[in-house]
C-alpha cells in the first residue's frame, strides 16, 4: 500500500493535465468558475524591476490564494506579435481561462484580436482603454495615479524653497502628461509661484539618462524632484545625494531617501486584484471596466517622510479629503503652456472625466514641450 499515494498522485496529475488540454482545445473553460481556472499574467519588463511590473506582480499574488486557481506568469514580453503569441500559448498550452495583460501597448491590436479569436477566454488590461465597442470578454482595470500626483504636488508646493519643482518623465504620452499637470496644479493650489520643469528621457528605463536629468534639474534650481519612469530608484537616489527633496512614483521609495522624501504617488493594485480574486472565489463575473482613484482605494500616497513640512502634511491631507469627495481640480479658466485656453472659464473636469484620459498638452506653469 505504501506506493499507492505516489501512483495515485501521478495518476491525478496525468488526468488533470489531460483534462486541461482537452478542455482548452474544446474551449470549455468557464471563467466564472474559479476551480480549475488558470490565470495568465503578462509583464512588459522584469517582474522585479522595483517599479511598474513589480507592483503588479506583488499585488497579483492575491490571485494565487484563491483555492483551485493556478497562476502562470511571463515577463519581458515586448509589445509586438510576441504578446499575441504569449497569450495564445497561455491559452493553448496552459489552458488559461483569464489573461491579465499589464502594459499599455498590449491592448490594441493584440489583446482585442485575441479576445475576438478566443471568445470563451476572459481578458483584462491595465489601462482605461476598454469601450463598449470592444469584445465583451475583454476589459480594463486602472488606477488614476494623477490624483496621487496631485497630492504630491500639494505637499511639494509647500516644501520647496526655490519654487522650482523638477519632473523626470519617460515619454510625453497622455498618462504621463496628466501626472505632470496634476503635480503642477497641486503645487499651484497652495503655492501660486510654483513652476514645474520637465525633462523627457525618451524611454521607460534609461538609468544613466535619468540620473543626468535629475542632476540637470537640480543644477537648474529645482529643489523637489519627482518622476514618471518605470523604476524610480535612480532618480530618487540621485536627488537624495544632491540634497534635494523627492516625491516617489509607482511604489514606495521612502527607504531610498531618508532625509528628503516627502511622499509619493502609489498604485494600490492589490485592491483591484483582491477584488477580482474575491469575485472569482464566489463564482461571479468580472466587470468589464474597473477604474478608480482615491475614493475607491485604487491609488494612495506613501506615508510622509522627513522632507515633508508640517504645513505641507496638513495641506496634503486636506487635499486628499477633497479628492475622495471627487472635487474637480481641472478648473477653468486653464491655459496650456503655449497660451491656448484648454478649459474655458466656468467649466471643470471632475476626477475620472474621460477628458483627462486624452490630455495631450502641458498646463501653464510647466516648462517643457510635448514634442
Amino acid at each position, binding site marked *: 500500500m505504501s506506493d499507492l499515494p505516489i501512483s495515485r498522485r501521478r495518476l491525478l496529475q496525468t488526468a488533470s493535465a489531460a483534462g486541461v488540454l482537452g478542455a482548452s482545445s474544446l474551449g470549455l473553460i468557464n471563467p466564472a468558475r474559479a476551480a480549475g481556472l488558470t490565470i*495568465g499574467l503578462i509583464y512588459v519588463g*522584469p517582474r522585479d524591476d522595483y517599479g511598474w511590473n513589480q507592483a503588479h506582480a506583488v499585488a497579483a499574488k492575491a490571485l494565487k490564494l484563491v483555492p483551485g486557481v493556478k497562476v*502562470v*506568469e*511571463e*515577463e*519581458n*514580453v*515586448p*509589445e*509586438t*506579435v*510576441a504578446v499575441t*503569441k*504569449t497569450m*495564445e*500559448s*497561455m491559452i*493553448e*498550452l*496552459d489552458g488559461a481561462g483569464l489573461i491579465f495583460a499589464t502594459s*499599455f*501597448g498590449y491592448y*490594441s*491590436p493584440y489583446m482585442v484580436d485575441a479576445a475576438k479569436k478566443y471568445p470563451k477566454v476572459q481578458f483584462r488590461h491595465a*489601462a482605461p*482603454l476598454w469601450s463598449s465597442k470592444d469584445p465583451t470578454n475583454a476589459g480594463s482595470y486602472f488606477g488614476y495615479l494623477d490624483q496621487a500626483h496631485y497630492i504630491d504636488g500639494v505637499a511639494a508646493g509647500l516644501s520647496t524653497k526655490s519654487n522650482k519643482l523638477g519632473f523626470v518623465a519617460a*515619454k*510625453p*504620452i*497622455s*498618462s504621463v502628461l496628466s501626472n505632470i499637470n496634476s503635480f503642477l496644479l497641486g503645487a499651484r493650489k497652495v503655492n501660486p509661484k510654483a513652476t514645474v520643469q520637465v525633462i523627457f528621457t*525618451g*524611454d521607460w528605463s534609461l538609468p544613466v539618462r535619468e540620473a543626468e536629468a535629475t542632476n540637470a534639474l537640480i543644477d537648474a534650481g529645482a529643489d523637489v524632484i519627482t518622476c514618471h519612469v518605470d523604476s524610480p530608484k535612480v532618480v530618487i537616489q540621485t536627488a537624495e545625494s544632491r540634497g534635494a527633496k523627492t516625491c516617489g512614483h509607482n511604489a514606495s521609495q521612502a527607504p531610498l531617501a531618508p532625509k528628503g522624501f516627502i511622499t509619493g504617488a502609489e498604485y494600490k493594485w492589490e485592491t483591484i486584484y483582491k477584488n477580482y480574486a474575491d469575485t472569482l472565489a464566489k463564482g461571479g463575473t468580472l466587470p468589464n471596466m474597473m477604474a478608480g482613484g482615491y475614493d475607491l482605494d485604487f491609488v494612495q500616497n506613501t506615508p510622509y517622510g522627513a522632507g515633508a513640512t508640517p504645513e505641507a502634511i496638513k495641506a496634503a491631507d486636506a487635499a486628499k479629503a477633497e479628492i475622495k469627495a471627487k472635487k474637480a481640480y481641472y478648473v477653468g479658466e486653464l491655459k496650456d503652456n503655449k497660451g491656448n485656453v484648454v478649459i474655458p472659464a466656468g467649466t471643470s473636469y471632475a476626477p475620472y472625466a474621460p477628458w483627462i*484620459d*486624452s*490630455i*495631450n498638452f502641458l498646463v501653464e506653469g510647466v516648462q517643457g514641450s*510635448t*514634442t
Partner: protein
Amino acid sequence: MTVINPMSSEAGTTLSPVRVFFDQVRTASEYVIIPLLALAVTCILFSGLLLILGQSPVDFFELLWRGGFGTPFSWQNTLTRSSPLILTALCVAIPAQLGLVIIGGEGALVLGGFMAAITALPFLGWAPPAVVLSVMAIAGVTTGAVWIGVVGALRYYRGINETISSLLMFYIAIAIMNFFVEGAFKDLANPNKPSTKSIGDANMIGKIPGMDVHWGFVVGIAVAVILWVLMNRTTFGFAARITGGNIRAAKAQGLPVGLLMISACAIAGGCAGLAGFFEVAAIQGKANASLAAGYGFTGILVAFLARQNALAAVPFAILLGGIAAAGGLIQRRMGLPDATVNVLTGLMFVVLLVSETLYGRIPLFKPRES
C-alpha cells in the same frame, strides 16, 4: 609549376558514380553532423547548469521542445517569430561576404517600417489594398536600402568603419522615428502609445492559408533563396566574395569594389527595411516604438550561426524563433527567469563556434584521396 586539379583527376579515374555520390554525401554530412554534435554538447552543458540550480533538465528540454516545435500551435508561434529574423539575418550575411560587419540593421528595420507606414497615409481610403501595400513595400525597402547603403558609401568613400557607423545610425534612426511618431505623425487615437495612423484592417497582409503565420515568412524564404543564388551563382556574388577575400586583389583585378560594397549594403538594408514593412503591414498596422523590438540584433546572431550563408539563415532563424517561443512556456511552468533562454542561446552560440574548429579535421568526412 604544374598544378594538378584534384577534381579533374578524380573525374578521370574509374570511380563508379555511386561511389562518387556517397563520397559527396559523406563530405557534405560534415556540415550537418558537426552542428548537431555541438547542439548535443550545449544540451549537456546546460543540463549541468540546471542541475546545479536544482532544476530538472528533462523538464526543461521537454518544455523547450513542446513550446517551440512539439505542437502545431508551437510551430506557428515559432514560424511567426522567425519571419523577421530571416530578413534581419540577411542584412548581416550579405555584407559579411564582402568582409563588412553591419550591426545596425535594426535602424534600417525601424526606419523602413516607419516610412512604409507614413507613405501609406495619402493612399488610405481610396486606393485598393494591393496598391497601398505595394507602395508601402517599395517605401520600406528603399528606405532600408538607402540607410545601410549610406553605411557602405561612408566605408568606401570616407573610410569610416561600417560596424561603428551602422551602430551610430541605429541610435539616430530611433531618434528620427520617435521624433515624428510623437510629433508630426502622431495619431491622436492612441494618446498613450504614440503611433502613426493605422493603415486599417482592410489593408493588412493576411495569413498564409490554413496557418496563423503571415506572408512575411514565405517572402523571407524566397528572398533568402534569391540572395543565395545571387551570392553563389552569379558574377556579382563571385566578385563580392573575391572582394571579401582580399580587397587589394579585387581592386588589382579591376573589380568595381565601391559599387559592390554599396550595393551589397543596399541589398542588406533592403532586407531589413522589408522586415520593417512586414511588422507594419502584417502585425501592427502602424509605426511606433515597438518596431525596435530587437529583431535586428537577434538577426546578427542568426547570421553568424548560419556562417553568413543566406540559405542557412532560414533554419537558424527558425531555431531561435523556437527558443523564443518556448521561453515563455519555460518561464511559466518552471518559474525560471526570462534570461534563462538567453543563457542557453549564448552558450549554444559559443559551443557552435568552438565546433567550427573541427571542420576538415575529422578523417571520416575527408574526401577520399585517389
